[in-house]
Each structure stands twice: as structure tokens, then as C-alpha cells.
């Protein structure tokens, strides 16, 4: 990059091919990374980004192709070799030992010794130093399992930084971060870049990519479509290149319910210890009600209390005007309410099981008289695959082998098996690609048009603004404000969400 002359790439991948069994996922991919650049890698789910980076960092072996480090052909047979070469991958699902402390994790596998024994003091000091450097306010003696997700992310980065990474691969690093934490991450990236570290940045959030990247590579269906300087491509260009077609309207046109539409769900003064402090809301027939707020503002806690998944210490729930004592999820299901969790991998799907039992698990009584009617289950699966456009190689594949977007569609199909009137979706498009996002938006909007009602909890601001008829903003377990119609606007939402406006600000 210096003087405009092409710098020698730190790492280059040449003609990488990868097949899992009969399915080829990467086709002759060439890619080069230069020292001190932030190189974004974008593409739809299943485009091959993660696989490509797992190959580079030694977690997956390519079927053919070559990796060149400092212009020398180098084999990266496993992740230990990758790390020794300075290529470190930070997984989307973290790779931390939950029961060990932060410092033990940072030094995992390369502990410092003093004679025969671990030099805990030195490791603690070094860890504290690295964490301070990252402006992370984390005690190195904390156990990982006691940390919030965003801190785990920072520990992962600290771990990589302390290993003198030359190429740091971040897979969806901001998926679990709040906007202020994201800012910290960006500052950190700038600094690492200044030290000559190459950052490979995988993300679906195109505005982040535009902000942070120097160059961007677009992958589609296992092929490299293009690599360009960031300055030359817009977010729209990226989206178009990823999908391979124009996305005309990301959000379907809104059709708000009539003002006096029936109130189908009413939650009054809900309290959940530690999460929600007296939140209330009303949902009308045919309405899409958005819930905005920062991570940890109590939105999920409120919704899980409404559907009986978490215990409410106070509060009342009325469904179509009738008080319902919802104590568990089956009560909610019986009342016609369905809930789509934001945690599809740990709470949504049985990853080791096939699509069919996953699809019918919530609504199993609808498929059972004395015995489960497997033929009807199979029919339902075929219908769901068609309706929700679930793309699985084989119908008897396990849910864990589907890409994120297809898992999400399967989860949505599962929830819809109970034919609910009220659908509460929590972060329905987290970590999924543009094309699938669009499909889910159309689906939600159709639901409302059919006279069903939807609560949309999301941290994705454009999605809240683009879909909701009305938006409630929460902060610290309370409802801070409400916006509707034309008044739904990012700036206002942020002012409520951050406490600049609303009850607390008085």
C-alpha cells in the first residue's frame, strides 16, 4: 500500500477448492491480504466465507489449493500451526473454556511457567495489561461463564492480540455487541491496523463494513465475485453483488391497522426481577409493533414473561380482552401466542436432529393421536420447505448442517406450526444474509396483512423502522417512549434508548 505500489501480500490463498462429500462449497477462490489492511469479506449465508477462513486458519483442510504466507507456500494443517504463523480466527461461537478464568483463557495452551509451576502472577499481570490496552474493564480472575457476551468477545480479541496475531479474522464480531461496544471494537481495529496487523472482517452489517474496511471481497455461492477498494463500492453495490440480483424494496409497504382495531394482546405492569420493571404494552389486530432498545434493555425479558418462559413477579396479561394466567409456554400456545427466540442455536433448534422432528416439536400434539403420525409430519415438512423456502441439501439432513438463514427459516416454520394469532419474534434476522432477511420481512408483513399481529423485538434499527407500524423503546427494563407512523425515526429511538429522552431524563 505504500507509495501506491502493490505491497507484497502477507497471506495469499490460491485456487482454493473445498468439497464436503459431494457438495462443493468453494470454487477456485483466490484471495490476498496485505499488511495493515482491514479486508471485509461479505456474502450471503452459505457463500463460503466461514469455510474459507477456517481453511486459512487451519480448522478445515482444503480439497485443493495453496496458502502462501510471506510469499512461500505453507501448509496450515491445524489451528495450532495457523496460530504459530500469526493467523488467528475469532469464532462466531466463542472458543473459550467457560469454567476457566479470563487469564487462564488468554494463556490457554501457552501458559507461562516459573520452574515446574504455573506463573500465575505473570499471567495475571500480562492479561490485565492486554485488557487495559483494549480498554476492557474486565477482572482477569473472572470466570468466563460469569461474563456477558460482549465481554466474552473482548476476551477473545485479547487472546488473539496477546498471541501477536498478524492476521486476525473476525467472524461477525459485532453480532452480540452494543453500539458503544462496537465503537470500542472499531477503535481497536484502527489501532491494530496501525501496528501492521491485517484484519479480516466478516459481517452482514454492510454499514459497519463500509465504515471499517479498506477493501472488500464479495463471495457468492462459493466463488469470489470481486475484490475492490471500499471507496469504490457503496452498500447497495455490495448487497447487489452478494445476492446477484437487485433488491428493489427491502421492506414491503406498510399497511397499518385501523386505529380502533381490536386489542389482541395487552400486557400490564409486568415485573421480572432484575430484568423488567413495570412494562406495559398493547398490541392490535393486524399490527406490527416494534420493540427497540439497547442490548440488555429488558425487551427479551418482557416477551419471555408474556409467553410464560420466565417468571413474572407481577403483572397482568390479557388476550383479546380476557385475562389469561400464562405460566408456561404451553399456556401461551393455547392462547394463540407463539414466540420466536433470538437464540436459534441454543434455544430454537435441536441441531443434532433432522428437520422433521424440529419442525413439529412445538406443535407435536397436532400430529399425534395416540402415536405420532409421521406421514402428516412429512407432509408438513414438505409444505414448510416450500412455503418458507428452506434450502437443505437433503430433507433428512440435521438442522445443524443448515446455514444460519435456513435455520432461521426452519425455526420460523416451527413456530408457525401452532397457527398462532399473535407472533412475537425476537431478533428474527440476526446473523443472516440479505436475501433471507428480505424473505422474513415479507413474511412478517404478510402475517399482519392477514389480520394476525406481530411483536418485533430487534436491535437492527433499519428493520425496526422499515417494518413497524408503531415502536416502543425500552431502557433498563422500562418503557421509555412510543413512536408511531411518520414519527418513527432513528434519532428519536436512540434518544429514548440511551435515556436522553423519556421518564428517566426528567
Amino acid at each position, binding site marked *: 500500500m505504500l507509495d501506491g505500489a502493490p505491497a507484497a501480500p502477507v497471506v495469499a490463498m490460491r485456487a482454493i477448492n473445498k468439497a464436503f*462429500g459431494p457438495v462443493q462449497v468453494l470454487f477456485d477462490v483466490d484471495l490476498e491480504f496485505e499488511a495493515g489492511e482491514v479486508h471485509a469479506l461479505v456474502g450471503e449465508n452459505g457463500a463460503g466465507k466461514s469455510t474459507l477462513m477456517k481453511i486459512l486458519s487451519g480448522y478445515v483442510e482444503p480439497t485443493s489449493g495453496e496458502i502462501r504466507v510471506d510469499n512461500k507456500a505453507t501448509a496450515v494443517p491445524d489451528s495450532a500451526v495457523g496460530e504459530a504463523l500469526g493467523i488467528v480466527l475469532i469464532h462466531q461461537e466463542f472458543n473459550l473454556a467457560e469454567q476457566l478464568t479470563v487469564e487462564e483463557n488468554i494463556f490457554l495452551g501457552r501458559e507461562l511457567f516459573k520452574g515446574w509451576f504455573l506463573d500465575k502472577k505473570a499471567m495475571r499481570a500480562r492479561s490485565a495489561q492486554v485488557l487495559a490496552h483494549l480498554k476492557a474493564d474486565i477482572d482477569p480472575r473472572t470466570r468466563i461463564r460469569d461474563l456477558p457476551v460482549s465481554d466474552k468477545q473482548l476476551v477473545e480479541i485479547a487472546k488473539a492480540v496477546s498471541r501477536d496475531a498478524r492476521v486476525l479474522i473476525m467472524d461477525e464480531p459485532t453480532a452480540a455487541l452494543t453500539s458503544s461496544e462496537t465503537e470500542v471494537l472499531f477503535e481497536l481495529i484502527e489501532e491494530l491496523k496501525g501496528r501492521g496487523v491485517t484484519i479480516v472482517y466478516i459481517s452482514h452489517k454492510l454499514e459497519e463494513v463500509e465504515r471499517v474496511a479498506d477493501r472488500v471481497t464479495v463471495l457468492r455461492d462459493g466463488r469470489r465475485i470481486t475484490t475492490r477498494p471500499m471507496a469504490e463500492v457503496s452498500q447497495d453495490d455490495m448487497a447487489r453483488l452478494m445476492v446477484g440480483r437487485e433488491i428493489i424494496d427491502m421492506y414491503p409497504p406498510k399497511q397499518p391497522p385501523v386505529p380502533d382495531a381490536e386489542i389482541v394482546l395487552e400486557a400490564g405492569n409486568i415485573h421480572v426481577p432484575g430484568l423488567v420493571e413495570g412494562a406495559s404494552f398493547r398490541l392490535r389486530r393486524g399490527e406490527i409493533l416494534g420493540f427497540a432498545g439497547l442490548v440488555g434493555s429488558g425487551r427479551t425479558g418482557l416477551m419471555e414473561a408474556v409467553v410464560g*418462559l420466565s417468571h413474572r413477579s407481577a403483572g397482568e396479561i390479557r388476550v383479546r380482552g380476557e385475562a389469561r394466567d400464562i405460566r*408456561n*409456554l*404451553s399456556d*401461551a*400456545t393455547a392462547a394463540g401466542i407463539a*414466540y420466536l*427466540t433470538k*437464540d436459534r442455536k*441454543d*434455544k*430454537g*433448534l*435441536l*441441531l*443434532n*436432529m433432522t428437520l422433521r*422432528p424440529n419442525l413439529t*416439536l*412445538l406443535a*407435536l*400434539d397436532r400430529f*399425534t393421536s*395416540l*402415536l*405420532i403420525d*409421521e406421514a402428516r409430519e412429512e407432509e408438513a415438512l414438505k409444505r414448510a420447505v416450500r412455503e418458507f423456502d428452506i434450502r437443505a441439501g437433503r430433507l433428512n439432513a440435521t438442522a445443524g448442517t443448515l446455514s444460519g438463514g435456513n435455520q432461521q427459516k426452519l425455526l420460523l416454520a*416451527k413456530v408457525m406450526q401452532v397457527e398462532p394469532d399473535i407472533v412475537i419474534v425476537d431478533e428474527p434476522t440476526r446473523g443472516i444474509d440479505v436475501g433471507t432477511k428480505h424473505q422474513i420481512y415479507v413474511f412478517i408483513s404478510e402475517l399482519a396483512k392477514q389480520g394476525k399481529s406481530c411483536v418485533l423485538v430487534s436491535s437492527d434499527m433499519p428493520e425496526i423502522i422499515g417494518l413497524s407500524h408503531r415502536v416502543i423503546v425500552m431502557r433498563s427494563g422500562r418503557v421509555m417512549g412510543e413512536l408511531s407512523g411518520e414519527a418513527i425515526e432513528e434519532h428519536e429511538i436512540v434518544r429514548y434508548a440511551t435515556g436522553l429522552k423519556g421518564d428517566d431524563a426528567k
Partner: protein
Amino acid sequence: MNDPELAVTANSRARSRLLDLDLKLYGPLLALVALFILGAIINPAFLSPANLANILTRSAFIGIIAVGATFVITSGGLDLSVGSMAAFIAGVMIIVMNALVGTLGAGWATIFVGIAVSVALGVSAGLINGLVTTRGKIEAFIVTLGTMGIYRSLVTYLADGGTLSLNFSVRSVYRPVYYDSVLGIPIPVLVFAVVAVIGYVILNRTRFGRHCFAIGSNENVARYSAIHVDNLKTLAYVVQGLCVSIATIIYVPRLGSASSSTGVLWELEAIAAVIIGGTVLKGGYGRIGGTVIGAIILTMIGNILNLTDAISNYLNGTVQGVIIIVAVLLQRGSWRRNR
């Protein structure tokens, strides 16, 4: 979906596919066939109908208990108490029946009361294991380790350190339940078959069975799918308790006695049978058909060692241990190229 090992065994289609077979699915069946051939080579007496019937009869106790254990393990639990539970139930059954001889006479009335007591005890014991595990939020390993000690010591106490023997005349009435045959099939084998078939249907074709898989795979997902996780897990322990009581009902007429050494290590044999059969120890995947084969394999090993001088009978445990480990190694199959 049919479980292949329960489908008509080794038909020609399965045979033609033996080379590209899925070890995970067919492994237990193959091991059984291999043992069978080995037995036949070692000693022709192995193939005699009497010997084969003997193997199946012997495997019935562990097999019936293991069917219950399949439910518990599939739903992510573990029950170490089944051996001592069986001993305790047998002891109480004998005491109750002996006490009733005076009033109800030494006939079937007495025996039926004994059977009812057995079922009630088995179900209650399962309920206790289940409730303490789920309501108390304690690991099943710890809870059932505790109840295992409790039942073992209770039976020792009831027998006053010795042996409880069933009244002789009651025993002679009850005896055929173990020793007689119906249509040439020993009654314990029939009971085993019925329990296995019912267990298979429940595990694979009912909501309860599907929920066991779900809970064992991921309790969170189960909870978020409107499954009453605690109740379901408790029910799995109750099924286990019921199976133990059924096994005890056919065990008591065999020896007509119970002591502190009754049912020792049955829990490990039952778990071994379940694991050999391909059920995953940490839950989420279970196969009744495999469990049945696992139970038969364990008994067959002992039987073959009895029929040969090549390996000492005392090495029974060694051979069983090796088989268990090899079975799991083959099933996990991480050594195969195509993972």
C-alpha cells in the same frame, strides 16, 4: 422411520449393502452376529435350542431394566440405583408375600399382591429419583448414587444381613413364571419381548418418546418448545422404575430369595447394554432395538466363556469391558475418513 435392527434381520438387501453400511446403525447387530458365529465355532453345544433359550432368559432381567434405562439416558439422565432398587423390591415382595400366606393362602392371590407391591415400589422409587433430580436441581448421577446406597442398605437391613427366602409353598406356585414356557418360548423372554416392543413404540412413535429425544438433545430448546421438561424427565425415571419392578417380578421366582448381593452391578450392565446398543450416553439419541441387542450380547459373552476352556470364566468382565469400549469406538467412528 424403522429402526433397521428391528426390521427383519440381515435380509438380502441389508447384506448386499454390508460393505458401505453405517456402523452406527448396524454395529450392534454385526457384533451380535459375530459373537453368534464365534460361539457356534467354539462349541456346537452353543447352538442347542436349550442353550439359546437360556441366553435369552438370562438376558431378560438386564434387558428389561435396560429398556427403562434407554428412556432415562435418552432424556439426558442416568439411573445408578436400578440394581439395588431391584434387590430392595425383591426383598419387600418376599416379606409381604410371606406375611400374607396366613391370610390369603399360598396361592396366586398372595402373588398378585406381591406383584402389585413390586409395581408400586418401582413407580415410587422412580418418582423419587425423578423429583429429587428435577425439583432439587441435582445431577442425576449424585441423586441415584444416593438412592443406590439407600436401597442396598435397606435390603441388607430387612434381611438382617442374611437372606430373605420366599415361603416354600408360595414359591412352588410362583416358580413357573420364571421356568415355564408358552408356545416353546420361556416366559421371561416373552415378557422381555413385550416390554421391548412397547418401549420401542413409546420411544419412537409417541410424543413422550420424541420429547425424551428433545430434552436429551437440548433442554433449553425443549423448554422453548412448550415441553414440561421436569415432568417429562421425572416420567422417564418412573418408566425406569416400572421396568425394574417388572424385571424383579420375573426374578423372584428364579431363586425365591433376596439378599444384599441381589442385583449387584446390574446398573452398570444395564447402562452397558444401552451404550453398546448405540444410545448416546449424554442423551438426545436412543435406540430400544440396540439396547435389546446389547443386553443379549452381554449375556452371550458369559455363555460363550462358559463353553470354552480357552479363556477363564473369571475374565468375563474383561471381555465385556473390551466389547463395550470397542462398540463405542466403532459407533463414534471419528477414525473414519468421511466424517
